[in-house]
């Protein structure tokens, strides 16, 4: 019991249950608790850019050499393209099959568009050359200051390749970046202690604001979306993982802590550093993880992809806009691009949706207003699917590279707690590298050690 209360995932779960209870009993209080959730997400977000920089740089510098980096990045992009295309297709199929918006008969001219003006402005379609030039920072420090993840990744790639090329002359800088990385992960471990509070606040807000009743009107859309995400995760991602040689339910159990934090905060970003560390411990090549997971957060948003097509079809149905097959394919094509550029514009799925509608043309942008109210509810499933998709991508690309330690991965998944505790006791996990979950393990492993230590050897 003591072990349970000390473990982070149990605390996060408790925070969520408590939050839901507060939100349901006293909606006003629940809404007022929003800053707790937002504050936690901000705490994590402030560390994302430097963490991406240090992990990408050390990852590449250790792999040594551009050729390998290029190959891994290329494989990652292929995997991302394949996964997001399947996800987009799934959204279209589900939207057409279930027709969640049919019969709503919304007149786009009578919808108040003020609520979405911010998104539509940000969603202005970028041209290809603008997008590519936009990846180059105005100034390196500016990329970090503005927290532009794509720019940070771009500079980190260059920096890592240059560092690898310097070989011995670069050891000092590499050691420094590694120290910095360890420090940042340690800061993250401290921040993660606040995860239960963040989950509590965020869930209390969502339940208090929207309540169970708010969902009924658009309930069909939400239900179809959750169903589609479920199908994607349990069929598509599970198949990919099976191909890599691992069992899916065990994998989900292994990343339960990350899932809960994502569910609680409805932001997959908040679990990014945790996920990277955990994939490394699973037996994925660390340089691969260092490259694939941060890139995946920009280019492998599978949950967002399902959402984008489904929501587009939904708006078309609700506003009685007929979509011919050709138009449907056009939407699909546009989304293949916008679902990637979503990452370049912070704010995520909703802005990408606005961009898509703008680009497609005949589906009224005003229809977005319908979604504003329930976006938060759908973002839970979106974030969870994104998270699982990135974890699976890290495993699959490692496997593809032939750098997945399969026997280790199986052992870890077979007995998550035991392997983790044993590793901690044996000291094979570098305590510096062990992240939040390390803090959890310190409690768990320490507890185990005192049990065995109590018996005479």
């Amino acid at each position, binding site marked *: 019991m003591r072990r349970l209360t000390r473990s982070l995932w149990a605390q996060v779960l408790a925070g969520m249950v408590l939050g839901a209870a507060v939100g349901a009993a006293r909606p006003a209080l629940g809404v007022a608790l929003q800053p707790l959730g937002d504050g936690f997400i901000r705490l994590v977000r402030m560390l994302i850019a430097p963490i991406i920089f240090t992990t990408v740089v050390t990852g590449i510098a250790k792999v040594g050499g551009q050729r390998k980096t290029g190959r891994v990045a290329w494989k990652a992009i292929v995997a991302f393209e394949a996964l997001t295309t399947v996800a987009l297709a799934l959204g279209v199929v589900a939207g057409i099959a279930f027709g969640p918006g049919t019969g709503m008969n919304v007149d786009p001219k009578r919808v108040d568009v003020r609520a979405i003006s911010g998104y539509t402005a940000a969603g202005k379609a970028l041209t290809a*050359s603008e997008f*590519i*030039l936009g990846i*180059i*920072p*105005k*100034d*390196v*420090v*500016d*990329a*970090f*200051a*503005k927290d532009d993840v794509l720019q940070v990744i771009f*500079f980190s790639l*260059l*920096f890592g*390749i*240059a*560092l690898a*090329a*310097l070989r011995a*002359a*670069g050891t*000092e*800088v590499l050691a*420094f970046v590694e120290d910095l990385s360890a420090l940042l992960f340690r800061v993250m471990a401290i921040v993660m202690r606040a995860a239960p509070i963040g989950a509590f606040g965020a869930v209390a807000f969502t339940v208090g604001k929207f309540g169970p009743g708010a969902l009924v009107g658009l309930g069909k859309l939400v239900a179809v979306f959750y169903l589609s995400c479920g199908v994607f995760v349990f069929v598509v991602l599970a198949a990919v993982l099976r191909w890599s040689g691992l069992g899916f339910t065990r994998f989900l159990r292994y990343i339960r802590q990350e899932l809960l934090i994502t569910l609680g905060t409805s932001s997959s970003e908040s679990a990014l550093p945790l996920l990277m560390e955990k994939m490394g411990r699973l037996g994925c090549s660390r340089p691969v993880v260092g490259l694939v997971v941060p890139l995946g957060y920009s280019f492998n948003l599978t949950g967002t992809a399902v959402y984008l097509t489904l929501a587009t079809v939904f708006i078309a149905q609700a506003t009685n806009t007929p979509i011919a097959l050709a138009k449907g394919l056009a939407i699909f094509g546009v989304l293949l691009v916008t679902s990637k550029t979503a990452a370049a514009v912070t704010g995520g799925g909703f802005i990408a949706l606005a961009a898509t509608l703008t680009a497609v043309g005949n589906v009224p942008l005003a229809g977005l207003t319908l979604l504003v109210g329930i976006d938060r509810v759908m973002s839970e499933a979106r974030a969870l699917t994104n998270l699982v998709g990135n974890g699976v991508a890290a495993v699959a690309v490692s496997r593809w590279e032939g750098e997945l330690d399969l026997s280790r991965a199986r052992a870890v998944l077979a007995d998550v707690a035991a392997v983790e505790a044993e590793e901690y006791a044996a000291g094979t996990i570098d305590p510096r590298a062990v992240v939040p979950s390390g803090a959890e393990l310190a409690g768990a492993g320490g507890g185990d050690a005192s049990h065995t230590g109590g018996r005479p050897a």
Partner: protein
Amino acid sequence: MKRLLHSLYAQVLLAVVVGAILGHVNPALGTAMRPLGEGFIKLVKMLIAPIVFTTVVTGIAKMGDLRKVGRVGLKALVYFEVLTTLALAIGLFVGKVVAPGSGMNVNPAALDTTAIASYTSAGHSMSTADFLLNIIPKDVVDAFARGDILQVLFFSVLCGVALAALKADGTRLLHLIDGFSHVLFRIIAIIMRVAPLGAFGAMAFTVGKYGIASLLSLGKLIAAFYATSLLFVILVLGAVLRWAGLGVFRFLRYIREEIFIVLGTSSSESALPLLMGKMERLGCSKPVVGLVVPMGYSFNLDGTSIYLTLATLFIAQATNTQVSFGQEMEILAVLLLTSKGAAAVTGGGFITLAATLTAVGNIPVAGLTLLIGVDRFMSEARAITNLIGNGVAAVVVSKWEGELDLDHARATLANVTAVEAEEYRAGRVEPTAAVPELAEAAAPAKERA
């Protein structure tokens, strides 16, 4: 042939020719190639602030070392300052007289639409007090984020002086900053691989937009630069050598091997170890050479200095930007700092130029687009002038110290081949083994070649 295609020089040349043809044949398509040139400039620009910081800090901190070495270091510094200032002034003078860029009538807004606002706002005249106060950053990180080079320079100078004052306590930090500077220059080397693409785009755009006549202006700039460099070597460096008691043409003949190596790699760094050995054999004092030549590679870049002022004026003329006398002095002052430690790395001069334009403010940085295509063709003359300047510096400082064996030097120069043959027989000095810490510095340059 294969080697030729692999050399960046040939690739850039090819790209420039293809770009110019495309721009001439199909102006619309040529103009549409603008993002290629613009992207290349952006790649270079994003690194300016950190590179200025690391080079100026390490430069000043090491200059502190230099002073510690004493009289020789001080003399070398004085000589370097005088010569580079002279070179900067000559570049400025030639730029004003020849005016290679006038008549191009380039509209900077067409070069980089995103950046117009900053020029127009920077164009407002500022009072001296405002100007001085603006050099102090609101916040140190803010200065880097906004890429305000004057502010970054100000902070870097403070950091460098403080680091030098820390002496031994600062060595670890100095090493680290030096390491970062290596990484950054390595990134520049990577970026330079796409220079052909940038040169192609820039050339296609320039010719497409401003017509084939714009090539004439660029040709004028190259011609002016080569002529100035030649005159600088023969007149200025020649006079300095004459004072030391040697003839400049014989001296050039003596170091012809190094000149050819530099010509091949277009980086004066690659010939550094060879030059040091040769200066010693000429009769210069060994400790003086060991100090003056390596430091000269950071502080005595004569060719780069000429290029910087000349190119700055070229861009100002091409974009019809008025440069007042005060601004000319400002350019000189900024360059006195940025041209130091700009490193004799390929592409280093381009970075410094970008930094200078950013610092001066009212000359559009986007004007660099005009130079991408031709920068490579000037880097040869730049590197060779730098090399000769450093050889001469070793001779002059030795002479100043009274440690130049003038008879030996004259005899060597009088009969180069005989002396060389004798030395070969005696077993050629292995350049890198003689100065181990320089082997490392030379290695990347060789790799690049």
